């Protein structure tokens, strides 16, 4: 089953020169899965396991926060304000947008 993940990655590397490789792989797999086949039942268990433990994969890079240089570290509080504000704004914007379209009413 892991071989299938590898296959996905392989196609990715060949096709993905401009678009991020893994993103291209995701699109390719998506196209393949659109047609009913046995592929879905083979790929699904692997994919579920990977997605469930996604947080673990972010850990190495995240630990890097504590090892940034002082010049960048000084900017971090300001950066956090910017991120917090813009994320809040984006969520409000999208919630109001969807409310305005009235998408949440028709089910």
């Amino acid at each position, binding site marked *: 089953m892991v071989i299938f993940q590898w296959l996905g990655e392989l196609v990715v590397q060949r096709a993905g020169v401009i678009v991020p490789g893994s993103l291209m792989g995701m699109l390719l797999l998506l196209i393949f899965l659109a047609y009913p086949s046995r592929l879905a039942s083979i790929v699904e268990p692997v994919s579920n396991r990977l997605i469930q433990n996604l947080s673990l994969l972010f*850990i190495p890079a995240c*630990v890097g926060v504590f090892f940034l240089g002082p010049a960048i570290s000084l900017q971090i509080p300001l950066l956090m304000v910017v991120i917090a504000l813009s994320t809040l704004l984006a969520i409000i914007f999208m919630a109001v947008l969807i409310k305005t379209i009235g998408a949440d009413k028709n089910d």
Partner: protein
Amino acid sequence: MTDLLAMQWQQITASSWVMLLSVTGFWLGMSIYRRSSEKPLLHPLIIGTPFIAILLVLMSVDFDQYYKANGLLSWLLGPATVALAVPLAKYLKQMSKVIPILTIAVLFGGFFAAVSALSLALWLTSEPIMMLSIAAKSVTTPIAMVITQQLGGLITLITPIVLFTGIIGILVAPRVFHIVGLEDERWQGLILGVTAHAIGTLKAFEKSPRCGAFSTIGMGLNGIWTSIFLVPMIQIFTV
């Protein structure tokens, strides 16, 4: 082609016992998170990463060494992104009737998320490198890394930025939904995916598979969309 494979193989085989630290940190974070009845502020990453950082300092292992030793985990991010296609495909069929609304929401939402971050960064920091590093903040980590690289931002910064965005996202989103009165969990999921990427999606899956599916769609489409518009846009502005 073979170069790429060889590079990946090297990355995987560079892994060592130090990787156990990550697993331990993750396990510790997870068990505390579960015991706290899954409060967002006690997200496994918030508990786990300082714990690992302290251990690294105590054992005098430097970060580069640690990061290399975790090659397998970093490499898995690729297949994990590919794996996102499975829930996407599964739910995309059910979503056929809401695709117009979905598309509008992702196009405007994704654009707004990046532009709001850019303009606030411009206003508050006036550091071009910060702006470039923050632009891809709402995009899932593997995609954000590539975008940031293309923009010339700081790759080391983008992961914590993306992580922090996700945490802020899952913290404020429920309150915003409550205030605005958005109760439909499909759209809650979509917003979580577009603005808070994988962390938002994780949160959405905890709520319900349907919420998670919409979140996955939001995250996936926003990742594709942002990588399309952001790079050309920045290039126009910086010339």
